[in-house]
């Protein structure tokens, strides 16, 4: 564990240098602790694969803390203590498991054939490999609700499209290198699109802005196009 300044109003707590579930767990333990008991001047945190950044207001930190020390030093002291506890803690966190129905291939997954051809597999094998893994949500970013997932089989790793699409439909499930993800909003993108979900990942009118949170487990359930159309009809 390492704590570094990130500019003059944030610090970064690093738990390692690799993408691994136990690192995500340490990050989540730390952020849960700060949720329960926010330190003076705390604004928000942003978790990522190997580290988490805490933003704070230096004026508030000093007002409610010590005058003779910098706000950054005070925040680093607080977080280094909490991060030690988060590392040493063996307690498991009950992860939410979210099933996301996906209609693979066809017009909803225009790159499924290309991905299968790249790996010299059948399209059914690609679907099977993709749908049988449990994926861990490491972070959300890039767009509201866009999940960065870990856990995809190496056997499915596929380079991005040579020419990115100007429009990728909301709900598209894609592969880029060793990553897999779901586009919450229509946007341009170069990921290989293998399917689409009728479920909305960005839910701006609900209590929580996004379907997924960092630390959730995602399972993709293959559905036929008919069921996709039905679910899409109900949700829209």
């Amino acid at each position: 564990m390492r704590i570094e300044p990130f500019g003059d109003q944030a610090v970064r707590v690093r738990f390692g240098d690799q993408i691994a579930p136990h690192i995500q767990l340490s990050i989540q333990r730390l952020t849960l602790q700060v949720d329960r008991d926010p330190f003076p001047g705390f604004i928000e945190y942003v978790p990522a694969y190997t580290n988490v950044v805490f933003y704070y207001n230096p004026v508030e930190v000093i007002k409610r803390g010590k005058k003779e020390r910098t706000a950054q030093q005070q925040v680093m002291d607080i977080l280094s203590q909490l991060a030690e506890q988060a590392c040493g803690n063996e307690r498991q966190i009950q992860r939410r498991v979210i099933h996301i129905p996906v209609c693979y291939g066809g017009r909803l997954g225009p790159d499924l054939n290309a991905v299968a051809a790249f790996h010299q597999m059948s399209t059914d094998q690609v679907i099977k490999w993709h749908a049988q893994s449990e994926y861990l949500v490491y972070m959300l970013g890039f767009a509201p609700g866009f999940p960065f997932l870990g856990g995809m089989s190496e056997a499915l790793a596929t380079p991005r499209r040579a020419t990115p699409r100007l429009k990728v439909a909301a709900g598209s499930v894609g592969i880029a290198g060793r990553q897999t993800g779901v586009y919450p909003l229509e946007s341009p993108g170069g990921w290989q699109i293998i399917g689409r979900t009728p479920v909305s990942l960005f839910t701006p009118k609900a209590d929580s802005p996004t379907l997924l949170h960092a630390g959730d487990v995602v399972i993709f359930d293959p559905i036929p196009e008919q069921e996709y159309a039905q679910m899409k009809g109900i949700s829209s």
Partner: protein
Amino acid sequence: MTLKIIQKGFASAVQDIGRTGYQRYGIIVGGVMDPPAAKIANWLVDNHESAAVIEYSFAGPSIFFTEDTLFAVTGAECIPMLNGREIGMGRPCLARGGHILTIGRMLSGSRGYLAVAGGVATPVWYGSRSTDLRAGCGGYEGRLLAEHDCLPTGIPSPYAQGIMSVLAQVESPISWYAALRRSYRGMHWIRVMPDTLWPHFSEESRKAFLSTNYQITASSDRMGYRLSGEHLLLEEAGELYSEAVTNGSIQVPGNGQPIILMTDHQSIGGYPRIAQVASADLSLLAQLSPGAKLRFRMITTQEGEAAAIQQYHTLKRLHQEIKCRFRLLAQKNN
């Protein structure tokens, strides 16, 4: 009360001090590019500093007031006209119902602010009225303002209403004004602090970064400023994972030309970062236009924090001064 947009200006949108607390969901903070200027505009109409204002870039909108409205124009220098009369910047002004405010082109600086007493009252989305263009949410229908849009405004504070009745009785506009002492001309020193990868950039890169000019290019916007200048190279390109980035993060993509992330930056990014702009210099940066030349100067994070706290106190004193002027104005009335 409503503000009717007659001319939209350039990139005019509803903004406030931003949407904090949701970056972990991928929702950006956004908000005004120059928070000190926007806060001053709000204080001049006795709003809370977090009230929503209209931000415009390079050219301001023209606005029709349906009712008597107290307003103030701050930020980039321009010559605002109310019904054809120059009214000056940085001071409270009274528009009568039926008046038209024309802000026009910026003479110096890039971003301007129009605050009205009571604030722009478009719906709040996750704690803020800021426009998130990429998500299509917040602000006015999640988009830039267009001709014929009608923006609702809130109720002015009792104090602002008092100022309005004083201004309704006096012929001449207010002679004092509140402004930040800044110049947007010439070469600009921007203070930076090293980011984690700083020591991993080549010695020549580090030297060039701190001793040569970088120019803001035309492909710059609220999301980031693309700079052109000496190439920057990492000593060895290791694998990097995406992680949180913020306002003022200086990213170096493969072409070696740095990009400074600005207000509408994404919550996370995967490019190597060489340095971080001091928070206190971000609002100056926000006012610079394509073509402007920058020179970076390295400071410690302690110095960066001290500069941010000093800026906070400077603004606080300005706020006190405005409140004091308001009291004098109110006494005049009695």
